[in-house]
C-alpha cells in the first residue's frame, strides 16, 4: 500500500533530519522524505500537521510475562499497550518461566508475537543456563534462533570466573551481552536505596556500591575479554562516572536507564508506596540528576521503559514482601519528552534515546527513516496532555508509580512495516 504522511515535523536522529514535510511509504518501506518520489500516488494519507513523525520507538527492556506468568500479563496485552505508545520493537529479557535458554522458548515467543500482530518482539537469550550463573547457556543456538543478545536479567553471576568465561564465549559467538550489574552480597535482599529514607522507613537497604562494584568488575572483564557489553538500568551518579572513565580509556560499552529513575527518587516511596519498589532501587535526587546529565553528555545513550506489569496481589503486601517492578510502558514517550521541557535534552537527543540508540545496541536495522528502510513509524502530538488513570491503562499491569501524573505528548498513529497498526 502507498501511504503519505503529510505536513508533519519529521525527526530522524540517525540521519540528522529535522524538517517539516511529507513522508512517503510504499510496500512497507520508506521511499521518500520531503519530496514525493516520481510517479508516487498515495492510496492513503495521514495528515500530521502539528505533529512529530519519528521512527517507531524501540524499548530495550519490557517484560511481557509470557511464557509462564500469564496471570500478570501476556504478549498480546503488553504489545497492544506498547503499540499505542508508539513502540514498534520490544526487547524482552530471558527471565520468563521457563527461562529463554533454548531455541524452543524463543520460537514460542516469536509465534505469540506474530499472532498478536502488534509490536515486534526481540527476545534476549540467557547468558547462563537457567540464569543460575553456573554453566554457560547455548548462546550460539540462541543467536541462531533469533535472540538479539544474551543477558542474565536480575539473576546474579556470583562466580567471577563464570562471568569471564561467559563474556569470552559471547565474544566468540559475536553476540551482545546485556548486563545488569548488582553485587548479590551487597544487595543482601535489600529493597530500597541506602540513605535517610531507608533509615526512616526501616527497610532493608541496597547501597550504591552494590551497583558500582559490580560495574567495576564487569568493566575490567570487558577490558580483558573485548566482549560487547551493554550495561542495563544504571541507577547511580557514581556509575556514570565509572562508565565515562572507561570510555575515555577506549573501552567500547553502552548503557541505558529506566524511565522511572529519571523522574523518581527514594523520596517518592514516602509512605511505603509499593508501586515505587523497583530494581535497581529509586535512588537519591543527586543520582537522578546524575543520570540526566549522563544522558545529556552521551555516557548513557538509551532510555527504556523497564516495564514490569504485575497483578494487584503482587503489590498488596508489606513493602519488602512485594514484587519489584513498575508498569511504565505507556509513559515512556511523554516522560522522555519531559526531559526536553526540563532542558536536560534536545528533542533530537530525546528521540535518539528511544530510536537510533537502542536500535544500535540491539543490532536492529530499524530506528531510522532512511530511504529503503522498514516503515516502523511513530506519529505523536507533542502538545497533547493526558492524565495517567490506572484503570485506563492498556497494559495488564496497573502497578504504576505515575498514577494521576499529567503527561504531555500523545501518540496518534503507529505504523509497523508500513501498516497502520494503531490510530488514536
Amino acid at each position, binding site marked *: 500500500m502507498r501511504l503519505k504522511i503529510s505536513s508533519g515535523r519529521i525527526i530522524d536522529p540517525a540521519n540528522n533530519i529535522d524538517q517539516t514535510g511529507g513522508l512517503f511509504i510504499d510496500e512497507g518501506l520508506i521511499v521518500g522524505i520531503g519530496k514525493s518520489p516520481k510517479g508516487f500516488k498515495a492510496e492513503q494519507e495521514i495528515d500530521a500537521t502539528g505533529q512529530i513523525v519519528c521512527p517507531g520507538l524501540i524499548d530495550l527492556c519490557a517484560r511481557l510475562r509470557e511464557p509462564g506468568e500469564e496471570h500478570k500479563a501476556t504478549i498480546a496485552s503488553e504489545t497492544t499497550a506498547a503499540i499505542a505508545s508508539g513502540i514498534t520493537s520490544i526487547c524482552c529479557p530471558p527471565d520468563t518461566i521457563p527461562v529463554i535458554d533454548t531455541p524452543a522458548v524463543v520460537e514460542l515467543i516469536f509465534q505469540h508475537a506474530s499472532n498478536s500482530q502488534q509490536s515486534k518482539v526481540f527476545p534476549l537469550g540467557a547468558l547462563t543456563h537457567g540464569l543460575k550463573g553456573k554453566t554457560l547457556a547455548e548462546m550460539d543456538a540462541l543467536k541462531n534462533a533469533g535472540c538479539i543478545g544474551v543477558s542474565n536479567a536480575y539473576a546474579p553471576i556470583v562466580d567471577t570466573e563464570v562471568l569471564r*568465561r561467559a563474556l569470552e564465549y559471547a565474544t566468540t559467538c559475536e553476540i551482545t551481552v546485556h548486563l545488569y550489574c548488582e553485587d548479590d552480597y551487597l544487595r543482601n535482599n535489600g529493597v530500597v536505596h541506602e540513605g535517610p529514607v531507608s533509615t526512616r522507613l526501616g527497610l532493608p537497604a541496597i547501597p550504591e556500591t552494590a551497583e558500582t562494584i559490580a560495574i567495576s568488575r564487569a568493566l575490567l572483564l570487558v577490558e580483558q575479554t*573485548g566482549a560487547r557489553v551493554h550495561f542495563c538500568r544504571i541507577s547511580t551518579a557514581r556509575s556514570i562516572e565509572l562508565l565515562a572513565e572507561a570510555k575515555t580509556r577506549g573501552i567500547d560499552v553502552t548503557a541505558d536507564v529506566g524511565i522511572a529513575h529519571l523522574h523518581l527518587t527514594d523520596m517518592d516511596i514516602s509512605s511505603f508506596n509499593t508501586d515505587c519498589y523497583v530494581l535497581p532501587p529509586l535512588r537519591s535526587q543527586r543520582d537522578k540528576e546524575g543520570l540526566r546529565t549522563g544522558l545529556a553528555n552521551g555516557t548513557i545513550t538509551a532510555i527504556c521503559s523497564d516495564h514490569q506489569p504485575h497483578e494487584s496481589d503482587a503489590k498488596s503486601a508489606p513493602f519488602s514482601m512485594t514484587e519489584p517492578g513498575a508498569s511504565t510502558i505507556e509513559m515512556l514517550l511523554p516522560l522522555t519528552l519531559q526531559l526536553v521541557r526540563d532542558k536536560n535534552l534536545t528533542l533530537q537527543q530525546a528521540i535518539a534515546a528511544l530510536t537510533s540508540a537502542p536500535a544500535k545496541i540491539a543490532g536492529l536495522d530499524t530506528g531510522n527513516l532512511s530511504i529503503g528502510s522498514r516503515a516502523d513509524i511513530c506519529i505523536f502530538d507533542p502538545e497533547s496532555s493526558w492524565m495517567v488513570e490506572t484503570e485506563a491503562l492498556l497494559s495488564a499491569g496497573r502497578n504504576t508509580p505515575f498514577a494521576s501524573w499529567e503527561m504531555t505528548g500523545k501518540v496518534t498513529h503507529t505504523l509497523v512495516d508500513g501498516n497502520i497498526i494503531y490510530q488514536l
Partner: protein
Amino acid sequence: MVCQRSGSSDPADISSLGAHAYYDMNEGMKDVDVVMMLRLQRERMRSALLPSEHEYFKRYGLDEKKLALAKADAIVMHPGPINRGIEIESSIADSERSVILQQVSHGIAVRMAIMAMVMGNQPPENKTLEDKTTGSQSEETA
C-alpha cells in the same frame, strides 16, 4: 588453528608462536591439506568453558559440511581417543579420508622409540638412517 576467543586476542597470544588463529571453523577449514582434530580434554577443564557438547559439535565439530571446505584430498587426523559426535562426526572418523588409526598406531611406535632413546639406547644400525645422518653426528648424539 581454530579456537575460541579468550581475552581481547586469541588464547595466550597463540599467534605470537606462529600459528594463525581462526574463531570461525568454516574460515579456518578453507583449502587446508590436513585437518587435525583434538579431543575435549575434560581433565584439564576447570571451569564453565562450554555450554554443552551439542553446541560444541555445532561450532567446532568436524562434519561433512565443514570438511567440504578443505581441499578435496585433505586427510583427517586425530591423536585419539576420539569422541564420536563431539569433535568428529562418526562417518568421517570411519571414512577413507581418515588416517586416525594409522596415526594412533604410529604414535605407539614413536612413543616406544622416544622411551628407548631416553633410556640410553642407540638407534638401531640401519642403512636408511646412516644415509641421512653423517657418522660423526650419530656418534655425538649417542
